[in-house]
């Protein structure tokens, strides 16, 4: 507790950095996943191609990806953009599949009704299919958010500072207060992301909470 009392300003700064280093990739990754998932759901031949590729990306160790990024992007090794791009790739790897599966899971009679009403293209996607896929996509988004908060701490190893610094420094110098603060702050951040997503889902799906609704 004394450690936290002495260093709370540092903790706040690091939390803020963790927040946007994990959050921005989540948003960008989500936006990129929509067309990818839509394509995979729409043309059955593209489904394995798109989802195998994105799935393989997730198997690249995060430290390796952080280190390769400057080579691929031509950025400096300490540039936070490296971390943002790498986490965006992980987010897409998780969300493209969820978006595709969510869109495929739209019940057949509803999809047919949409066709028969004269829905097509983007309007059909945003008017009918995505709203119905919200619960599935939100579940994937929660996993991606927690995963991002966890992976972002590795970025301390390449010198991009955020909450991970507390874990590494606390471990190396055996400062229990610092180590514990780092762990608790990471968990709280992950819970905060989760809460925002759950709240957003509730706002977007009033139809699931009415009496007699089926998920």
């Amino acid at each position, binding site marked *: 507790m004394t450690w936290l009392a002495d260093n709370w300003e540092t903790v706040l700064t690091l939390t803020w950095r963790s927040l946007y280093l994990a959050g921005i990739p989540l948003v960008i990754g989500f936006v990129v996943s929509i067309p990818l998932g839509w394509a995979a759901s729409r043309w059955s031949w593209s489904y394995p191609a798109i989802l195998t590729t994105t799935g393989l990306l997730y198997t690249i160790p995060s430290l390796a990806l952080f280190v390769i990024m400057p080579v691929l992007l031509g950025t400096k090794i300490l540039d936070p953009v490296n971390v943002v791009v790498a986490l965006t790739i992980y987010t897409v790897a998780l969300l493209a599949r969820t978006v595709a599966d969510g869109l495929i899971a739209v019940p057949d*009679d*509803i999809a*047919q*009704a*949409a*066709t*028969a*009403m*004269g*829905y*097509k293209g983007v*309007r059909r996607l945003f008017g*009918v299919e995505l*709203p*119905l896929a919200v619960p599935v996509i939100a579940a994937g988004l929660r996993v991606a958010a927690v995963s991002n908060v966890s992976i972002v701490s590795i970025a301390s190893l390449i010198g991009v500072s955020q909450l991970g610094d507390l874990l590494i420094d606390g471990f190396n110098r055996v400062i229990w207060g610092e180590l514990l603060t780092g762990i608790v702050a990471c968990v709280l951040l992950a819970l905060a992301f989760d809460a925002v997503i759950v709240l957003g889902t509730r706002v977007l*799906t*009033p*139809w699931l909470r*009415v*009496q*007699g*609704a*089926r998920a």
Partner: protein
Amino acid sequence: MIRFDAVTKQFPDGTVAVDELTLTAPTGRITVLVGPSGCGKTTSLRMVNRMIEPTHGSITLDGQDTGRMDEAELRRGMGYVIQHAGLFPHRTVLDNIGTVPRLLGWDRKRTSERSRELLERVGLAPELGDRYPSQLSGGQQQRVGVARALAADPPVMLMDEPFSAVDPVVREQLQDEFLRLQGELGKTIVFVTHDIDEAIKLGDQVAVLRVGGRLAQVAEPSYLLAHPADDFVADFVGRDRGYRALQFQAAPRLPLHSEPTVLLGERPQGAGAEWLLVVDDDRHPLGWVEPHRIGDRAVTEGDLHRGGTVARERGSLRAALDAALSSPSRRGVIVDDSGSLCGTVQAHEVLTAIERTGRPERDESDPVHGGAAAVSGAEPTTQDSVS
């Protein structure tokens, strides 16, 4: 008018779903496609709005080849109702109804007014408008499905087994209201069902399809019942067709007998009578009682035999005969349009009336399409249970 001209649909696996179908669905009429599963009725329907494209042949809408129209525009001009309603679960009832108007670019106010109007039109309470489909019963959802199809006032309606997923009582209500609505709106309707009774009740014209998508016969219902073109049609139309055909024949003036009655809650007076008809204050028949079982006390709801059906005066011969046959007293109850008792009629009197009426004429020149030329509006059944 929708015209199928030698339309064939062969799926990639080689199955022929529809084989050289030539058929006209006249403007303002209900054309029912009926047949066993695998007869291509749903495929035929979906080719009209191009959810399925024909392999050969053409479908024209008022003389225009639908194959050359923009798919989405074509569909927005055709109301479409499916079996489980297919409502959008994430939209309120009103928003569901307003789907096509919004797609056509109507503003919010106009769409909302139209949606409210249709909600009322299909017999739903205004407060249901803000609910979600999951909060409605199957029958209510189906009404919303019909309202949604009607929203942009399309001249054409395509209906794919719209009433088959609801229970029989609700189905009958929906059918009756559908006929009432059609009486007001006069849409060109293509209606698919596997239920021959529904086909006969709703169709101005019924097309019977056989497995493999070949047209077996197309005719108006009374003609179909009287003159099935071959064994398949006769078999499909089923038993009791002589009896069922009576529903298309209006009863002439029947010799009515005046019937002694007792008011619910009063003591039966007609001593000696085996059966006595119970009515309410407006002389609406409620059911039959056996006076000797009641003795000297007042008639209660629990005493009523409700098995008898009630026929309207000048309704169909079928309703009149059924009223006589179903009545425990063997005296069929006939009521006027307001539901008040006119009198009773016996089965042999209805049979005499039946013998005096003719059967639908056969057009010898066209054994398959015979009868279709003289399409006329079918009378909705006027048969209700005593309740």
